[in-house]
């Protein structure tokens, strides 16, 4: 079985993102870029499945310009066997991404497609579910535990009510939540080795995925700020303040 893992290049999660003064977007110039953390967790899970002998190959893929090769190489250094870049210089929204991934799925025939549950830039949380819909296959989203047996997966999902367990037939789409695992650190020899692993580049136009109508972003703004508060010196003062506001 092959596992296809998607990787999105995003602003590193430690960077405090700022809106450009003219409201045309957010500042990404000179900002550290990384693998979307949820995708890193997805890749870690795929690698663990392979290391347990339940999959033969882990393929990482990313959609974007040549800069995404950096994140694909990191994925290869983590342990993926090969990488596929779908080359485009245009940003891709979830439905178009799902249509592109469907073309890769038809080509590679994976048993699992593993995605992060959301990307920490656009916070859409859509692509995995959309791919599952277009593929006509199960989706196990927000996964915090994955067990495979007999062509099926038992997936524990983090939901509002607690933990929901679903059983899905493979092939299936899975999306990772935070507590699925802790991704490994990449070691220097692995980075060297990753340079020799295959990285294939496919032109978006050659895949034949029909682009969807995009949402149009017309303005960006910083979030409203909460007014500064005050420090109180004692429990009694705190209770007094809360009573003043009619909260107690």
């Amino acid at each position, binding site marked *: 079985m092959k596992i296809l893992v998607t990787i999105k290049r995003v602003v590193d999660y430690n960077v*405090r993102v700022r809106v450009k003064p003219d409201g045309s977007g957010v500042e990404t110039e000179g900002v550290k870029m990384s693998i979307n953390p949820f995708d890193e967790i997805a890749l870690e899970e795929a690698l663990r499945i392979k290391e347990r002998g339940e999959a033969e190959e882990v393929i990482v893929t990313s959609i974007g310009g040549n800069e995404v090769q950096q994140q694909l190489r990191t994925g290869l250094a983590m342990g993926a066997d090969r990488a596929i870049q779908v080359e485009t210089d245009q940003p891709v929204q979830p439905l178009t991404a799902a249509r592109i991934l469907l073309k890769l799925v038809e080509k590679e025939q994976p048993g699992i497609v593993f995605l992060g549950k959301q990307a920490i830039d656009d916070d859409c949380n859509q692509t995995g*579910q959309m791919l599952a819909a277009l593929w*006509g296959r199960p989706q196990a989203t927000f996964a915090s535990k994955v067990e495979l047996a007999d062509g099926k997966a038992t997936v524990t999902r983090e*939901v509002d009510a607690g933990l929901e367990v679903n059983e899905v037939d493979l092939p299936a789409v899975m999306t990772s939540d935070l507590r699925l695992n802790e991704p490994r650190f990449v070691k220097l020899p692995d980075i060297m080795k990753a340079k020799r692993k295959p990285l294939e580049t496919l032109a978006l136009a050659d895949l034949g995925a029909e682009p969807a109508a995009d949402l149009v972003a017309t303005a960006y703004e*910083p979030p409203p700020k909460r007014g500064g508060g005050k*420090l109180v010196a004692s429990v009694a003062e705190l209770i007094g303040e809360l009573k003043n506001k009619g909260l107690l």
Partner: protein
Amino acid sequence: MAKVLIIGEHDGHNLNPATAKTVQGASGLHIDDVDVVLFGSDLDAVAAQAAAVAGVQRVLTVTHDDFAHPLAARIAPEIAAMAGDYSHILTGSTTLGKDLLPRAAALIGVNQVSDIMEVLDARTFKRPIYAGNAIVTVQVPEGAPVVGTIRTASFAAAGEGGSAEIVAAEARAEDPGHTRFVRVEGGGGDGPDLASADIVISGGRALGSSDNFAVIHSLAKKMGAAVGASRAAVDAGYVPNELQVGQTGKIIAPDLYFAIGISGAIQHLTGIKDAGTIVAINKDAEAPIFEIADFGLVGDLFEIVPELEKAL
């Protein structure tokens, strides 16, 4: 054809408050024709509750054993089959909404607007990106329905007093047979629901252990509050995952929020930005939580919290 379809959420007994908040969010569209659709195996009780939500014209009940537990793979094709009759298809951005609606959107052939926090007009919305560090205004292209999730923390629940017509509808799709519900673990706490409580008391890593979390539970009980937690506290196993407040947990808007022993990582702050009043208790005076708290108290939580409980 301006007509809104809202997918109602419920547990078989009670309508989830997210549904009334979605109705409220949808009111900004200024479209009077609003249907709520419910999928379930026994819908009498929740249909009556949905019919009482002000602003709802019609409650469509799709009753089938397949819907005893909501599965996206089963319900999404139902929504796609109904889509032709509507200009807007909305649900709350609960974990169910996030799981279900993108699957339906893909079948309909549109991108979804996730986490709508403000409705500017029928096709223009504000939504948070980068963990709420930026707000983007997006326009949905003409020619297809608007499909979106409503960020429930941004809207109060629509009031009661509605008297919608309840109409039974038939399931239109088949069970794809590849996805099965097994069980749900957790929940069952006796306090108020975290997502909709008026007061929430959250504990963080500084609690140090599951046993120590008792001071939080005890204060919450005294105040009739729901208990929440930071990601660090959940990761450390002090409390179960469903109590996590923050970007990847629950995004909440209580009237009063206590952050106790929580330093205030940006991902946590994202989850509480819409709270009415935030109280922070932390021994580190430099903790970022104090930058957004309305009232801060610097000190040892294990002294302050019992003192607070006693004084109330």
